[in-house]
């Protein structure tokens, strides 16, 4: 089962925000830092956590190209990755890279957030925060 659950009290807000094309992380206001993965309270100060929208800028920690036979939850090969959000550099987001060729990927390269639908082999598609290599837009 790979389908995210938007109703889960602890993890659902991430996927609910994703459905609105916002990338959020669990955050402690008092410490002003991400608490990832989410916990009932801040492990540093015990304070309440809320969900903070991130800018979407990130760098590529690492990735792999997964073959069809390795994980049959998706049709065909795909590129899961660990990325470091600029606003929460002590954490990693698990995501997928899209609109790129494996040959152009380099660790530590800048990435841009790009929302897209993921379609598991079984179940409904879901909107997910994905990333793509950051490219300067060149004029027409």
């Amino acid at each position, binding site marked *: 089962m790979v389908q995210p*659950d938007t109703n889960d009290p602890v993890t659902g807000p991430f*996927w609910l925000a994703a459905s609105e094309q916002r990338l959020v992380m669990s955050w402690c206001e008092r410490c002003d830092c991400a608490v990832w993965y989410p916990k009932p309270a801040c492990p540093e100060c015990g304070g309440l956590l809320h969900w903070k929208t991130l800018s979407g800028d990130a760098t590529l920690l*690492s990735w*792999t*190209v997964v073959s069809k036979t390795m994980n049959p939850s998706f049709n065909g090969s*795909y590129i899961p990755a660990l990325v470091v959000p600029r606003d929460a550099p002590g954490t*990693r987001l698990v995501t997928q890279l899209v609109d790129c060729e494996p040959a152009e990927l*380099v660790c530590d390269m800048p990435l841009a957030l790009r929302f897209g639908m993921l379609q598991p082999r079984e179940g409904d598609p879901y909107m997910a925060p994905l990333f793509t290599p950051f490219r300067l837009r060149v004029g027409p």
Partner: protein
Amino acid sequence: MSVSGQSLEQLVRRAGYFDWGSAVPLEDIRGEVAIAGIGETPYSGPSGRNARDLCLEAVAAAIADAGLQPADIDGLMVSKGIADQITPEDFHAHFGTSQPIWFSREGGGMIWAATSAHAAAQALRRGEARHIVNVFAVDWASRRADGRGTPGDWHASEVMKAHFELPFGWYPQPVYFATFARRYMHEFGLTERQLAALPVAFRRHANRHPGAVMREKSLSVEDYLDRAPLADPLRMEDCCLISDGGAAYVYTSVERARDLRQRPVIVEGVGRGIVDGAPYISQQKQITATPQTFAAPWAFAMADANPGELDVIAVYDCFSITALMQIEDMGLCSKGEGGHFIQDGRLDFDRPRSRGGIPCNTHGGLLSHAYVLGIAHVVELVKQLRGEAVNQVENAELAAYAGFTADEGSTLVLRRG
């Protein structure tokens, strides 16, 4: 029984501090406990047997090897959560015995193949047991063949992994370690050809080892490079087998072991390390190192030895890259130099320390012997230190096992008695 030399403060000082994990403060048990008997089942693909049967067969073999009777066994250590293990009731039902048995679920394979020695030493100290069997078996090849589960099940059931990792396809375990291997290649320039040295050396050992699952299948570096990646840069040959099988060993005091049938193998040091933020390896601060980083210095401090003195090692090789990183993290070479270090047959059983080698996984490891989660690694080291191994290493006196569960690591230093 004497309580040995070094205080916790001394061990902490010698083992050092780290900013992404730490060693569990295990008190010094050097020279208190020995492995006095070993036993194994056949190792195979789907056998139709269950893990409990396999456990009992391995236990019976270990007791006989030690020259003991089932009624002499008053301690049993098994795994807490992995596969179906046995209880004292199963032991009594099988052997027709009734003695009281000290029972611990802090045993089995993976990190516990090492740390069980520490728990056993404490039980021996307290007089709770005299002869303790540690056992572990899996029937995952049969289970997978019947669609009754896979080694990835725990990962898929953990809430944060299920909600933040599986939806992106960062699953199962080969995908984690492929991601780490890619980063390692970036940081240290490791090539696929260099990485091949691990699966090729372990396969060569398995090809000479009766009972190794991959005994009949050879593997050259060129064969390896010709295979398509499963999760690049890892190929099938970089990933552990899925097997049925089990093994067991008997712990007792060193004094008692000297009266038994086999040459004792003495526990010199035990270490256990835990990554901060466990169990989420996606959040681990360092993904090009393992918790062996914290475990090994503790075990070597307890053993008052250094890694350069090791004659043979057995390293938990769920993936080639994890074995490579642990070889570094044990202190056998500097961080990042592993890819170069393992070339030119340095891991081969027939390149002993006297010729610059460090024979590794001389039974074939999880990649080519059997995936029994490290319990057979320790059994192989016992055979090496007794001088009874098939791929016997010349003058094997000091050995170490590196155990691994992703977020935890362990080290067991053993000496020929």
